[in-house]
């Protein structure tokens, strides 16, 4: 197994922060922790090439560094690419993780890196990489490299990867079904028992942490604002012209309401399987309140109702998909010079 290894300037033996601008250097041998990596990988593997680069250079020239690493890794006929371990070093972690993603997708060979949970490289790429949990202490280098070596062998042989705790990688946030000994009822009661007694318990799903989305500045003057309606309640014209799925919709539609004082049930249907849709089907204004907004427009409470409403189905929609839909919708509304949006959900 031929291994290409990436290190920053510190672990590459060049020096500390004062050498963070160092340009990439290529060595056809193991360097620094690479020597130990070679040992723990065993007889059938060797570090054939090492790329060392300063943290600042990497941050500022990621594109050039990526191109070089891809070229060198390909040229070295690598079977596997290893970066780090980076422990808590943030710029190093971001570069290592980014290079791993690039090598994996461009060269289609297994990649391994290691870093502390807190490293920003983890947040960026945990979903696509197996990142060995290195902890914070570089003194654990041998132990961490052993875990990374085990991971490298496992990935190279194409074996199924077990759970994060067993294999020592940082959870990628991917769900996998398993049959367990205890019924859900037994798990519920045992967990409650521990929780009530103040003992430690492990939730089967850690609480998600989502970044705060800051509220935008208030609309300065609503009487001059162009207002649009967006709904994830699945209201579509009869026949569902954009084939918006009734759950986990992957697309959205914008539908003309210019000149309409309200919406008629005969003209619309609902593509959504998650709520009792009868009341909306009777009177779509209950979900997409064109009638009320027209009144507000006439009395100049709002400047203007945007000529289209936007609709999708939010039901069980994966977050990544929702983010994409949101970005696309926002871009279109921005282009249409919409100042404010009313979101209606179900």
């Amino acid at each position, binding site marked *: 197994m031929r291994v290409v290894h990436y290190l920053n300037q510190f672990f590459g033996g060049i020096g500390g922060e004062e050498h963070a601008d160092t340009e990439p250097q290529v060595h056809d041998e193991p360097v620094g922790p690479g020597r130990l990596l070679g040992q723990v990988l065993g007889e059938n593997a060797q570090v054939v090439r090492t790329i060392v680069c300063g943290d600042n250079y990497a941050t500022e020239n990621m594109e050039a560094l990526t191109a070089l690493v891809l070229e060198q890794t390909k040229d070295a006929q690598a079977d596997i690419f290893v970066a780090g371990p980076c422990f808590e070093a943030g710029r190093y972690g971001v570069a290592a993780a980014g290079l791993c993603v690039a090598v994996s997708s461009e060269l289609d060979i297994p990649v391994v890196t290691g870093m502390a949970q807190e490293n920003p490289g983890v947040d960026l790429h945990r979903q696509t990489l197996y990142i060995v949990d290195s902890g914070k202490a570089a003194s654990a280098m041998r132990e961490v490299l052993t875990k990374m070596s085990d991971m490298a062998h496992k990935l190279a042989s194409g074996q199924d990867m077990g759970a994060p705790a067993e294999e020592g990688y940082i959870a990628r946030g991917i769900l*996998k079904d398993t049959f367990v000994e205890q*019924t859900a009822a037994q798990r519920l009661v045992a967990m409650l*028992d521990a*929780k*009530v007694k103040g003992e430690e318990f492990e*939730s089967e799903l850690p609480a998600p942490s989502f970044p705060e989305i800051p509220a935008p500045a208030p609309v300065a003057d609503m009487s001059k604002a162009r207002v649009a309606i967006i709904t994830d309640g699945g209201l579509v014209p009869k026949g569902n012209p954009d084939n918006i799925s009734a*759950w986990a919709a992957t697309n959205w539609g914008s539908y003309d309401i210019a000149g309409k004082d309200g919406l008629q049930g005969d003209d619309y249907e609902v593509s959504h399987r998650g709520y009792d849709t009868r009341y909306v089907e009777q009177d779509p204004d209950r979900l997409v309140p064109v009638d009320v907004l027209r009144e507000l427009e006439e009395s100049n409470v709002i400047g203007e109702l945007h000529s289209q409403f936007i609709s999708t189905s939010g039901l*069980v929609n994966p977050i990544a998909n929702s983010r994409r839909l949101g970005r696309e919708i926002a871009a279109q509304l921005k282009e249409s010079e919409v100042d404010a949006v009313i979101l209606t959900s179900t």
Partner: protein
Amino acid sequence: MRLTLAIHQIGSLSLGAATLLDGNKLVVDPEELRLLILEDTRLRSVDIETVSPGEDCRIGVVFDILEPRAKESGSGPNFPGILDPIGVVGQGVTHVLRGVAVTVVDGGAGLENGKILEMTGPAGEASPYTSLHHLVITPHSAENVVRHSEQAALRLASVKTSVYLAQCALEITPHSAEIFESDGPVVKGRGGLPRFAYIGQVHSRQRVAEIDEKILYGDNTAGMVPVSLHPNEWLDGAVVTCNRAMGAETYFYQNHPVILELYRRHQDDEITLVGTLATMAASDNDERDRNCMLAAEHAKWNLAADGVILTKYGGGAPHADMSLTARRCEELGIRTTVQVSDMSWDRRAESALLFNYPVVDAIVYVGGRDTDWDVPAAGRVIGGSGELAEELGAPRRLIATNVCGVSSQQGISRLRAMVH
């Protein structure tokens, strides 16, 4: 309240000339049962068949599965509000044919998202139902019977058959007895033990129940606020599933995994089971706020619970009701655990939860979305119509969430989605 289940362990099930229990052999006279079921003029005919444990047989679309049970005279009504007049259940003696299930096929339902009972193979092994002897009934409705009436007829046929079968055991000495006794929230002499309660949804108003849909003591739950039930009432016929219940069958109300586990710990003097609440998932925000608040208030001030287990019904939206109730409980100082359904269609943990309350931090995550089986053609098929049976019997992919008992919402599931 004290309930004695008189358990008759059944080893075989067959059709014969008279319905009787001979040792552990149950024989069913299909003609007598047919006449009983067809007293309901909404039905024109009924197929009655038996299926053995582990048999190469596929059954669908399943309307409901029940355990045959009958109340002793003077012990209260059978399925009050559906079969017998309204009256309290959960007391006296109820005879149980353990090892047998009444499985009702809904001939009017489509296969898409329909529930299937797979009796063999790896999919079968994952289901708690395949070790049972099934009496499968497939009622066919009379002409011009509207859909909800057809479903109401299925419901009546299901409880009739359950009671009819077990009635043959009423005069027979059971193999064993299971006693369920709890004095409720005012229980004395159990000081120091944590007080646990259960809050379970019995319907979701994502689909408003039909006017003749009988769920809780015969009520369709429209306008229902949280209802206090003794744990025994769940076990003894107060609650059945709705017309189209995903991940729930009446069998696991009668054998409610959460209530049985709480009772086990209660009987072992580890906890005190103080009571339960039946709730439903709302269709609008005011209804949700009101119901969640009332359920938490009940748990705090009427049950004086230290800990509460919550389960949901239906699809995605009921998570909002369950988690808000849990949050309200936590705010009142009651610790909670919740069981959620698998809602992550992209298998990302970030998409898995439909709520985000930091205090609702003890979650049991029943998986199911990436468990499926490619099954061969079935040796035997019981489907509603010839056409559907043909489609059902062909080789197909069975998804865990559609196989009865695998990704159950009632607590029987051994599936767990792990975060990798």
